[in-house]
């Protein structure tokens, strides 16, 4: 049976309180086609897509103890891109849906609040939307959707499902880490720089080094950051936060949040700074942390806080303050974030119509997101800082390896 309201999942509980400045907890998936987007067709496609994603039809409301999602009959409306990147589309006074579909020229944007879903849920939504759009536009037959999940499976809070109350991680006192500083764009603007390159060419290089793609690029990013920061900042280690999709380790069809994170910490003041050593260490950390045991530990540690009886009965205005502090304490333990969303799959008949997929997220520091589609690998850096030296070092590192890179950026639309 469908209920008309839902608790937030365990990760999303933090998010409504955590919103601050450019960190709006929004993320954007885009799909670039070969031809201009047609407004009417996209609206039709959205109307059909929302039928299979009923859990996206809700608004955020405040209870006495927790926020919750209430089913809403508001109809999602397609608009031409009209606001800044990853702007907060929800306001506690106006009830709006927690996602939005916009378009610009040949690009379709899906902006989703992290309260609602994570990368996996959003990817499923976007690929379904694009499939509908292309089949309407080109008179193709709509193939059956690629995922199989009932309403209840999609709205399941998988954190609670796999929480066993034991097996928590041991508390480790972590050192202060280096934090990025600098002038920011005014008006809470985010800049995104997206680089497109060939998956096969990139894989050739990473395989030569016997490394996974994510680990290789993480090492590149670590070195780019280390080269950019001052010697005094280097006293503290550089820490890179890596989100992990828990669905790969715990079977789940949930369309809501189900991810965890781990950190790769590298101390440039005491360890060698050459790329191969950094890469070896990053690979070691990946091997150690990407195991079911470690991830069970993180899942239990994260979920335990929400199952604490004292935490449960604290009134929401109090929780708002505590959760905000907790979120930002945790956030500032990492210098930057690198998230590889993985491979986007869409029924074969549509491949000829699509140029690329991109993903980017809101952040207060620096966040890199990668996604691959066929032979197209895209990595986007979002940041509120005007300084683009980390991105320059990162992309030059790749172009020096002989990779052909094409970048796009929203700086052409930013008013500085």
């Amino acid at each position, binding site marked *: 049976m469908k209920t008309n309201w839902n608790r937030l999942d365990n990760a999303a509980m933090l998010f409504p309180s955590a919103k601050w400045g450019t960190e709006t907890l929004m993320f954007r998936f885009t799909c670039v086609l070969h031809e201009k987007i047609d407004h009417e067709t996209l609206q039709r496609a959205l109307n059909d897509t929302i039928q299979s994603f009923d859990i996206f039809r809700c608004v955020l409301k405040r209870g006495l103890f*927790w926020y919750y999602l209430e089913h809403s009959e508001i109809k999602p409306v397609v608009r031409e891109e009209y606001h800044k990147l990853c702007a907060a589309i929800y306001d506690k006074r106006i009830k709006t849906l927690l996602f939005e579909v916009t378009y610009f020229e040949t690009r379709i944007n899906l902006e989703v609040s992290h309260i609602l879903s994570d990368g996996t849920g959003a990817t499923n939504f976007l690929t379904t939307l694009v499939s509908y759009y292309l089949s309407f536009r080109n008179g193709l037959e709509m193939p059956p959707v690629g995922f199989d999940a009932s309403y209840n499976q999609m709205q399941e809070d998988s954190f609670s499902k796999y929480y066993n109350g034991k097996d928590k991680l041991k508390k480790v006192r972590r050192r202060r880490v280096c934090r990025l500083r600098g002038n920011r764009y005014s008006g809470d603007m985010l800049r995104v*720089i997206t680089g497109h390159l060939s998956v096969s060419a990139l894989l050739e290089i990473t395989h030569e080094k016997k490394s996974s793609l994510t680990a290789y690029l993480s090492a590149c990013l670590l070195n780019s950051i280390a080269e950019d920061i001052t010697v005094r900042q280097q006293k503290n280690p550089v820490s890179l936060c890596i989100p992990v999709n828990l669905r790969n380790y715990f079977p789940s069809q949930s369309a809501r949040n189900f991810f965890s994170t781990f950190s790769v910490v590298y101390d440039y003041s005491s360890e060698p700074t050459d790329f191969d050593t950094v890469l070896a260490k990053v690979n070691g950390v990946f091997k150690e942390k990407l195991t079911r045991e470690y991830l069970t530990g993180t899942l239990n540690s994260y979920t335990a806080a929400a199952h604490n009886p004292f935490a449960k009965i604290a009134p929401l205005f109090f929780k708002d303050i505590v959760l905000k502090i907790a979120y930002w304490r945790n956030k500032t333990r990492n210098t930057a974030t690198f998230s590889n969303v993985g491979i986007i799959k869409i029924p074969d008949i549509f491949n000829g119509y699509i140029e*690329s997929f991109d993903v980017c997220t809101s952040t207060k520091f620096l966040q890199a997101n990668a996604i691959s589609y066929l032979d197209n690998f895209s990595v986007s850096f979002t940041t509120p800082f005007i300084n*683009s030296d980390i991105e320059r070092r990162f992309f030059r590192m790749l*172009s020096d390896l002989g990779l052909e890179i094409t970048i796009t*950026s*929203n700086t*052409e639309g930013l008013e500085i």
Partner: protein
Amino acid sequence: MKLQNHKYCDKCKININGVMEYCPLCQHKLDGENGVRQYPVITTVYRQYEFYFKSLALATTSGGVISCAINLMLPESGFWSFFVLLGIACFWIMLWNVINRRFNIPKYISTQVFIISFISVIWDFATVWHGWSVDYVIPITCTTAMFALAVTGKVMKLPVESFISSMLADALFGVVPIIFYFSGILHIIIPSVICVSVSVIAFAAIVIFNGRSIIVEVQKRFHI
């Protein structure tokens, strides 16, 4: 990946798509044909009416300061500037409530009842207790608010869930005058008795017709 028209930064050895004049990575001037615009120009949203609010804030501040100054010059005229300050404070509380809840009329009405009741008691105290706040203001505001809520719900075709909690809060608050009645602080009892009766009837109506909605609403709002 091959993209149509693009520029090339020979310092970064990178293709740049879009209409940028400078390389976004190294800010080096780019040559070559512009490609297709990739992002729209987004103007910063100008905050509507901000100027009026600032003017209003300055006007009320100056009003308060000037009346205090005149009062200090004429100490024999009594402490009347206190009332000016109280008036200004009430004005801003009311305005804040209107602005904050302008998208949720039922909630606005119910909070306005509390604010009006609170303010009237304070003014009654400040102007030597006559009891007009408990005799008239509180019961009459409560009763009118309940009718206002019912009418708003009908006219704006609001779903029951969206105003049931405001109605309930108002109905419960409307029973409070019974305390005034029995504690004997009332001089005029008719408005209070009407208010309590209307509240009880409203409460009964909600329970009889929407009992189920109340349970769901309570479950939602109080889940732990």
